[in-house]
């Protein structure tokens, strides 16, 4: 069992690297969905296996997997169809460099984890916290380095995934109501962002955020 969970964690790490390194939307979005499903499956299992399946876990799994694994990719695909975007235009940081950055981020994530161990974190698994940090960092890198609005949304979702892990890592069993609130917020955020992208593409004929520089001093 331990090995299985370790492997899950490593797979999540790898999905992140894949997100950093690929230029095609067609690759990124399914990867994101895959990561969502992995999270939805792995974490509750990891957390509550000792206690057995509770309604709480059931509800969580039943909401997380459809939302993170299916709905978000679906929304993103719709946006792509509407805006007619196939691949990311050349980002600020080239793909090899962003993979390199991703590795640096990994080191940073483990370093942060090392700072926090011994501080009585109720961590259930040694890899949980670094994975969380790493996912968040990757999300941030995506937001900062990619030019298309859609990629920023993608980055945001990745970041949210990381935070989901982090929430579990830190707080353990959070009240269901809170979980649901957070999930709803994330969902609405993605929804709102995708509408915003529609509007931007309609107004500008592109969704290159780097060209949105009219408002400045």
């Amino acid at each position, binding site marked *: 069992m331990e090995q299985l969970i370790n492997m899950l964690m490593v797979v999540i790490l790898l999905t992140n690297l894949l997100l950093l390194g690929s230029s095609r939307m067609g690759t990124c979005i399914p990867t994101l969905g895959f990561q969502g499903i992995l999270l939805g499956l792995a974490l509750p299992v990891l957390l509550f296996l000792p206690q057995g399946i509770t309604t709480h876990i059931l509800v969580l799994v039943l909401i997380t997997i459809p939302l993170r694994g299916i709905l978000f990719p679906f929304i993103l695909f719709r946006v792509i169809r509407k805006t007619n975007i196939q691949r990311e235009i050349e980002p600020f940081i080239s793909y090899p460099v962003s993979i390199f950055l991703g590795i640096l981020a990994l080191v940073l994530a483990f370093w942060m984890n090392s700072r926090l161990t011994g501080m009585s974190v*109720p961590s259930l698994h040694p890899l949980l916290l670094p994975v969380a940090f790493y996912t968040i960092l990757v999300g941030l890198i995506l*937001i900062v380095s990619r030019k298309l609005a859609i990629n920023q949304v993608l980055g*945001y979702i990745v970041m949210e995934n990381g935070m989901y892990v982090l929430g579990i890592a830190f707080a353990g069993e959070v009240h269901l109501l809170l979980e649901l609130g957070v999930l709803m917020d994330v969902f609405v955020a993605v929804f*709102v962002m995708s509408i*915003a992208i529609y509007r931007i593409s309609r107004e500008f004929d592109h969704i290159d955020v780097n060209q949105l520089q009219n408002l400045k001093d």
Partner: protein
Amino acid sequence: MEDGLILWALLVIPFLGGFCCILSSKGFTIRWIACATVWTMLATAFVSLWIVSIEGAIQAAHGWLFLDMLSSYHVVLLQVVFALSTLFAKSYFPAEIAHNAFNSALLPRYGMLWLSALGAMNLVFVSNNIGIMWVGVEATTLITAFLICIHVTPKSLEAMWKYLIMCSVGVALAFIGTMLVGAAGGNLKGSHSQSLLWTFLYENAGSLNPFFMKMAFLFLVVGYGTKAGFAPMHSWLPDAHSQAPAPVSALFSGFLLSTAFYCIMRYLPLVEMATGKTGWAMDILVFFGLFSIIIAAAFMVFQQDIKRLLAYSSIEHIGIMAVGLGLGGVGTFAALFHLLNHSMGKPLCFFSAGKLVQIYGTNSIYRIKNALKITPVWATGFFLSFLALIGMAPFAIFMSKFQILKAIIEKADYISLALFLFGCAVVFISALRYMLLILWGESEANIHPQKAYKKDIFLVAFPMLVLLILGLFMPEFLQNILQKAANIIQGY
């Protein structure tokens, strides 16, 4: 139970109103629904304040909803700002529709978003669970995003996107902080569901893990600070304020920033008590405050966009409040007082600026001239509120700034004193640079004088009177309220 009801009322009524808005299609009905909701809320808020001041903090929903003096004070201010903004929106949007800048078909959606934003902000104030508080903050971001680009232009879309992404990222960081706070309380005895309740944390603040709390506070202050407009995370703010319609900008500046700032206020005592009252967290706030003041001042120099000017002024004021909060003592009291003053002055300033922009059809300060002839009421409102905002006596901001300065000096922090005064002086000079031109300059454009309505006069007179009266004397009950709220922040 009755007390709990009022908390539910604060939460539910706005969303109900919003729901009604989307159902109706007539502009007239929507306006009435919005007004009715807002006025009801105003009354409710005052009632809640009354209850809180008599009975102390009230709770509902097993302690998930909670209202003490601090939040009650904020709730009342929020409703007042909302009521004023709604009143203003009633006269602002018909003119926009007349200018073809706004499609009346959008009115239901606008009304819905407007009232839901109120609901979301109320959620922030009444929730005791810091997670739910976060949910509320994030919700305000998402709801208000569309309010910015009601009038769809490339620029407003750009502003909205920046607002959305920056605040989402920022608030996401705050979530990490929230979780860290939960982790810090992990070794506390108590049921699991309580670990994120503010009251629980507050009572046990002394035994929270200090390292975690420190780390959490850094995330929180950066995260919520993004939303509150601390420099250097403020970049979205001038864009959003300058592009949003005037009532929305007024609301943003008047209370949205304060909502995020309120969250920081809530965490401050927790961190301070957890770290043994060393002033660690407060120093960070002072740092952000001064940094914001200086940055805002720098951007106000040679600023030509009237609404951006006001936006930077908001950053400056948030900075001032942060300095006050970070100093403690009189400073906390003064920061809360300043919050009230700013929430009175800034919306009025945005109302007037919005009207001027509407009349002249431009944001450029150079092209808005001779306003006193064209629209005496709004020009007066603009000038007076701006004078109040830059700290002229006898308006109340002078008093709150004075108290904050007093707090700085009590700390014997002379570098902060110098920076604070320098920043305020730069703001003063650069803000005043164009004011006289706006009011009295010779206008080339041929614009007809506008009629003044009674409602406009009320909108100008009410905040100014409040500021004037509070600048001359401060009623006992207000002092009590502020003192109680300040005591909560200081952890007494």
